[in-house]
């Protein structure tokens, strides 16, 4: 079985966060979703994000939940297949209530831009020219 990674991220309102990621085009794994968490499939059987209500997230840790709109512990960087996918996802994220903290950076061989989701978590999108 290949290595899988799942990012557990606390969210304020699970339904709103599900709607946000659905509008970006991501699907969910219903077998791993309930009223406390929803699994966003980024790359099937390989990369997922578990959106977790703050109450449930708190039950998993022995520290306070960081408020991601105020400070960040992580930037999740995803590789995109085209330049257009980078800009397209950021556009959808902003339209769905997210924020783009930085303008798009175009280095020719590499294009990158990030968005902040509705809870303040940071996602960075990168396209690199095939080597």
């Amino acid at each position, binding site marked *: *079985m*290949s*290595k*899988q*990674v*799942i*990012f*557990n*991220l*606390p969210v304020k309102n699970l339904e709103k966060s599900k709607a946000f990621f659905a509008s970006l085009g991501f699907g969910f794994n219903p077998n791993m979703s309930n009223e406390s968490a929803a699994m966003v499939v*980024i*790359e099937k059987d*390989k*990369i997922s994000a*578990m959106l977790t209500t703050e109450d449930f*997230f708190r039950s*998993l*840790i*022995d*520290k*306070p*939940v*960081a*408020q*991601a*709109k*105020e*400070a*960040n*512990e*992580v*930037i*999740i*960087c*995803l*590789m*995109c*297949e085209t330049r257009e*996918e980078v800009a397209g996802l950021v556009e959808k994220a902003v339209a769905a209530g997210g924020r783009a*903290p*930085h303008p798009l950076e175009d280095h020719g061989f590499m294009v990158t831009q*990030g968005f902040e989701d509705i809870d*303040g*978590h*940071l996602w*960075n999108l990168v396209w690199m020219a095939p080597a």
Partner: protein
Amino acid sequence: MNKQIFVNLPVKDLDKSKAFFNALGYGFNPQFTNESGACMVIAEGSIYAMLLTEPFFKTFIDKPIVQAKEATEVLVCLSCESREEVDGLVAKAVAAGGHTPRPPQDHGFMYAHAFEDLDGHIWELVWMAPQA
């Protein structure tokens, strides 16, 4: 979407963090490693962690950095091949200066444990029984 992901995490002392994850058995990609960041290979070709010095991490965000020993924004959960791999990684993490926030959870078909790295980032390790 491509099949690669880079988890960017701020660290206080890059050399110490590299030594910590080395002790757990992870290697680094020298092509994407310099004095400000180190590219740790979790699964070649798909999953990487970028350990970034706090000053460098700060250049990517317009907010303060969370002090992960005090509050948590993310749990990075990795699948393991066996219960022994789960326990082995936690034991190595503790020996290398990390700590484990809780005892392992054994649900029979699923076995999970976790460690906190030197900076307080929490890594969850999960083994799940192969589906019949």
